[in-house]
C-alpha cells in the first residue's frame, strides 16, 4: 500500500476499502516504534476507538458514499477543540479539560470522513517556536532527535513528518504552522485570515490566529484546505468567498505544467540574523526558480524591520486578554477553595496553571494595554501593522508572490534558543509578516542542508490561495524533494 501522501492513502482505500484497517494497523506500528523518541502526541486515541470509527467509514466506502477524506488519519494540534477528547493547549491549566463541542474545522473533517487520531504537542497556548514550551514534554525533530521540530505546532508537524498521521492541523499566529513544517520537511499552509473558521480554536492572538494544514505535499495541503475553508456563521471574522475551482485543482494545475509568475524577494528578509547555509541554499533555490521561467526581483522594504516588535506587542496584548478567562472556576485546573476569597483562588490557579513563557506574555500584554502605555505601544503597533500591510499588499499588486527562507536558521538544538526569549522570538522574523498583513503563506520543503530540511516561504495577496497553491505546487514539481521521509522512519515507510 502506498502511504507516502494523503492523496495516495485516500486513493488506495477508495479502490480497496479493506486497506483502511491495514493502514491504521500500520500507522500504529510506526507510532509504537517512534513515538517514544519524538513524542508528538499529548493524547493519542486508542487504536480500538480509531478502528471503531474506521468501521463506519468502511461501510460508507463500500456503499460508495464516503467523503473526500475517507482513509485519512488526522493529527490535530491540542488547541483545537474536539468534543469528548481532551484539549490541553499543552498547559497545566487545561490538563483535564474535555471540550463539550467540536471546532468548526473538526466538524468539517469528520463530515468528510476523516478520522482524528490524536491531539498533538505544542508550545503552551501556542506561545513559542520550538515546542519546548509545552508544560508536559518537548517534542523532538524526527530528522535529528537532538533538535527541536519548531513550533508551536511541533507535534502536528512531527506526527506528519514521521508518518504517525496522514496529515495534521496546526494553528499559525506568527509562523506556528510554517516554522515546524520547515524544520521537519513538511508543507505548512497559513491561509488568509478569515478563510478558515476559528470557532473552537483556543485563542492566542485572535486578530492573527489561523488554522491550516501540515502535510507532506502541496496537493495534500490543498485537499485539506478544500475541506476546512469557507464561511462559518459562528465566527464573525470568517470571510464569505468561494473560488471557481477547488484548491486541489489549482495545485494539480501547478504540478502539471509551467506557470509564469513574477516573484519578489524583500532584501530585509534575508539580511542580518540569517544563517549562512540558509542563505546559500536560498540562492541555490532561486537559480532553480529562474531556470523554470519564474522571474525573481530583489527589492528593499525597510519597514519590514519593525515587523517583529509590532507582532509581539499585538500578540501579547491580545493574549493577555484571551487568557484572562482561565481562572479554574468553570473548567480547568482546580485548587482547594476552603477559606479563600475568590481572588486568592484565581491567583493560585493562574500561578500554578500557567508556565513561565505564558506568564511573561500575559504580563507584557497587560503592560502594553495599560492606561498611559496603550498609545505608546498597542496603538502605535496597530498603526505600524497597517503600514506593513499596505506595503506588502501594494508590492503584491506588482508581483505575484513574495518569497523568502521560511526560517532564518536550521532547526536549533533543544535548549539552545529557549534560554533567551529575544533569541527565540528572532527566528519568527520572516513568518510574522503574513499574520500582520492577514495574507496567505506557505512553507514548502526546498532543500536538505546537513541532512536537515530547509523550507521556502511563498506569500500571496489575500484570498489568492488559488495562485499560492498553483505556484507552490509548480515549484514543488521541479524541486522534486517531497514527500520527504526522515531517516528515522525510512525503513518502515518505503
Amino acid at each position, binding site marked *: 500500500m502506498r502511504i507516502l501522501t494523503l492523496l495516495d492513502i485516500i486513493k488506495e482505500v477508495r479502490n480497496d476499502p479493506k486497506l483502511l484497517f491495514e493502514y491504521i494497523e500500520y500507522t500504529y506500528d510506526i507510532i509504537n516504534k517512534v513515538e517514544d523518541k519524538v513524542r508528538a502526541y499529548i493524547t493519542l486515541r486508542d487504536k480500538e476507538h480509531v478502528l471503531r470509527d474506521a468501521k463506519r467509514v468502511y461501510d460508507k466506502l463500500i456503499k460508495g458514499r464516503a467523503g473526500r477524506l475517507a482513509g485519512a488519519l488526522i493529527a490535530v494540534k491540542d*488547541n*483545537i*477543540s474536539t468534543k469528548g477528547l481532551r*484539549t490541553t*493547549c499543552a498547559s497545566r491549566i*487545561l490538563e483535564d*479539560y474535555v*471540550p*463539550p*463541542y467540536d*471546532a468548526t474545522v473538526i466538524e468539517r473533517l469528520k463530515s468528510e470522513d476523516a478520522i482524528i487520531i490524536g491531539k498533538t504537542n505544542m508550545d503552551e497556548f501556542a506561545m513559542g517556536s520550538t515546542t519546548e514550551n509545552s508544560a508536559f514534554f518537548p517534542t523532538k525533530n524526527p530528522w535529528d532527535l537532538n533538535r527541536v521540530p519548531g513550533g508551536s505546532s511541533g507535534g502536528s508537524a512531527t506526527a506528519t513528518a514521521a508518518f504517525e498521521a496522514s496529515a495534521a492541523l496546526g494553528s499559525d499566529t506568527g509562523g506556528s504552522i510554517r516554522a515546524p513544517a520547515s524544520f521537519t520537511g513538511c508543507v505548512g499552509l497559513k491561509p488568509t485570515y478569515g478563510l478558515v473558521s*476559528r*470557532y*473552537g*480554536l*483556543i*485563542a492566542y*492572538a*485572535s*486578530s492573527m490566529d489561523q488554522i491550516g494544514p501540515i502535510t507532506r505535499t502541496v496537493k495534500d495541503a490543498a485537499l485539506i484546505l478544500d475541506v476546512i475553508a469557507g464561511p462559518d*456563521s*459562528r*465566527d*464573525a*471574522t470568517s470571510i464569505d468567498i468561494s473560488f471557481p475551482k477547488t484548491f486541489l485543482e489549482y495545485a494539480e494545475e501547478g504540478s502539471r505544467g509551467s506557470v509564469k509568475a513574477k516573484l519578489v524577494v524583500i532584501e530585509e528578509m534575508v539580511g542580518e540574523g540569517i544563517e549562512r547555509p540558509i542563505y546559500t541554499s536560498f540562492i541555490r533555490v532561486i537559480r532553480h526558480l529562474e531556470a523554470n521561467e519564474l522571474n525573481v526581483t530583489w527589492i528593499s522594504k525597510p519597514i519590514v524591520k519593525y515587523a517583529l516588535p509590532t507582532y509581539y506587542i499585538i500578540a501579547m*496584548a*491580545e493574549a*493577555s*486578554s484571551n487568557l*484572562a*478567562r482561565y*481562572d479554574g*472556576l*468553570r*473548567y480547568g485546573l482546580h485548587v482547594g477553595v476552603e477559606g479563600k476569597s*475568590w*481572588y486568592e483562588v*484565581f491567583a493560585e490557579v493562574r500561578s500554578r496553571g500557567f508556565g513561565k513563557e505564558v506568564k511573561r506574555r500575559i504580563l507584557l500584554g*497587560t503592560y502594553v*494595554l*495599560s*492606561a498611559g502605555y*496603550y*498609545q505608546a505601544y*498597542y*496603538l502605535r503597533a*496597530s498603526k505600524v501593522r497597517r503600514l506593513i500591510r499596505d506595503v506588502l499588499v501594494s508590492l503584491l499588486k506588482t508581483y505575484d508572490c513574495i518569497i523568502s527562507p521560511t526560517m532564518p536558521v536550521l532547526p536549533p538544538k533543544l535548549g539552545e534558543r529557549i534560554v533567551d526569549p529575544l533569541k527565540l522570538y528572532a527566528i519568527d522574523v520572516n513568518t510574522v509578516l503574513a499574520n500582520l498583513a492577514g495574507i496567505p503563506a506557505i512553507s514548502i520543503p526546498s532543500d536538505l542542508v546537513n541532512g536537515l530540511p530547509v523550507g521556502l516561504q511563498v506569500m500571496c495577496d489575500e484570498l489568492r490561495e488559488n495562485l499560492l497553491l498553483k505556484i507552490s505546487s509548480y515549484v514543488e514539481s521541479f524541486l522534486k524533494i517531497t514527500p520527504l521521509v526522515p531517516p528515522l522512519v525510512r525503513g518502515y515507510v518505503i
Partner: protein
Amino acid sequence: MSFKVKVGLEIHVQITSLKTKLFCSCSADYRGKPPNTNVCPVCMGLPGSLPVLNIKAVREAVKVALALNSKINNVLIFTRKHYFYPDLPKNYQISQYDGIGSAPIAKGGYININIDGRVKKVRVRRINIEEDPGRIVYPFGSITKSPYTMIDYNRSGVALLEIVTEPDLESPKEARVFVQKLASILEHLGVTNPKLEGSIRVDANISIEGQERVEVKNIGSLKELEKALTYEVARQTAIVKSGGKVVRETRHWDKTKNITISARLKEFEEDYRYFPDPDLPALKIDRKFIEEIKASLPELPDERIERFVKEYGLSNYLASVLVTESKDLADLFEEAITVCGNPKLVASILVNEFLRWIDEAGLSIYEGLRRLNKDRLCSIVELLRKGVISTKLLKEYVKQVVLNDVEPNDLVRKGLTVLIDREFIEKIVDEVFKEYRNAVLDALKNPKAINFLVGQVMRKTRGRADPKIVNEIIKERLRRFEKSS
C-alpha cells in the same frame, strides 16, 4: 446650610424584546430557569468559543438613541473591558468605550423631565451596547450570612444598554423622575419590559458642592433610588458640616438597613485595559438603516402627553403622570375611556387616588393594575354616573379595590352607597343644627357658610349621604328657621 447636589446616573437596561442573547443563540429569557441551564460555550466563555453579534440588538439600540436625541456613530465597535470577577466568564466584558480607536453606539442627547411644574432638560452622555454578566447567588440571602457563594450564568450574555447621564440632576427626586421617564420611553419603544425584575438597574454618582463624588451601587428600585440618594445627601452634608471631607469611594445600598455601606475606596481610576475586540469586526451603521428605524418609531411619551392634553383636555400634570409613571397606566386610561368616557375623571382617579393607595399598600403599579383593572375602573365610574355613589364614595371605592382587591359591585351589595333616605338624613341635619347653633346663624347671613353644615352632616354619615339631598334639606331647614325667627 444646604449644599448644591449633583447626581449623574449609569442605567443598565436589558433589551428584553430580543429572543436571544447578544452574542449567542441562547434564550434571552433566562428568568425562572434552573441555574446554569440557559448557557452555551459562548456565554460560558469556554476556550475557543467566539461571539457573533445579534444584529437585532443594534436595531433596538438605535431606537433608544433616536428617542433620546443622541448622535449615532457611523461605525459599531465593540471593546473588551477587563476586570476579574467570578460572574464574568471571560474575565472581560464585551462592551463599548469612548476613546481612541473606539466609540459607543451613540453620544449626547437629552431627556426632558417635569419637575414641580417646569420642564428640565437632562443631558445624556453616551449609550453603550454590552453583555450582562452572570448572577451571584448568596445561598443564605446576603453576603455576610453566606459562607460561600454560587454563580448562575443563565443571565450571562444578555444584551444590555448602558445609558450614562451628565451630572445634571440636582436632587434625589429629580433622579427618580428621570429614571421613571426613561423607563416609560423604553417601554413605549418596546425595547424593555420594566416589569421584569432586574431589567432596569441604576448606579448613581452623587456629590455635594466642592466635594469628591461617591458611587452608589446595588439600587434595586425607583423608590430605593430616591431613598439611597437622600441618605447620601444627608451623610455627605453631615461630614462637611462637621469639618470633614467626603472621600471618593463606591458604596453599596443596603435596603434592609436603609443605609449605604462603603465597598471600596477609589483613589485611582480603575484600569480596564480597553481595546477593540478582535473577534468582532467593526460594522458600518448605514444611514438608511437609521432612517428606516426612525420612520417606524412608535408614539413616544412626550408626544403622548401632548396628545392627552389636546385630545382629552387633561392638564399637563395629569397627562405627564399618566404617561411617565408607566405605559400600562396610560394604556389603562385610554382603554377605560373608550368604554366609560369621562377622561378627566378617569385621569384624576388614576393619578390622585390609585397611585396614592398603591403607594400606601406598597404595591407596584403592575400589582395595583391587576386589582384596579379596566372593568372595575369603569364600573366605578358608572356607579358615580348613576348616582349610586358620590365623588367621596368613589374615592373610598378605589381605596377598597386597591387595598382589598374587591369587586365594586360587592361593595354596592354591602350597602356602601349613597344615603338617599330623606328621613334619616333629616334626623342628622337636625342633630347638626342643634350642635352648631352659631354656624346656622352664620349660614343665614352668608350662603357660603352652608358648606360647613354640609360637611358636618357628611362627617356624621361617614361620607355616604347624598350631598344633593343634604343640600336640599339644609336649605329647606334654613328657610324654615328664618320664617320661625
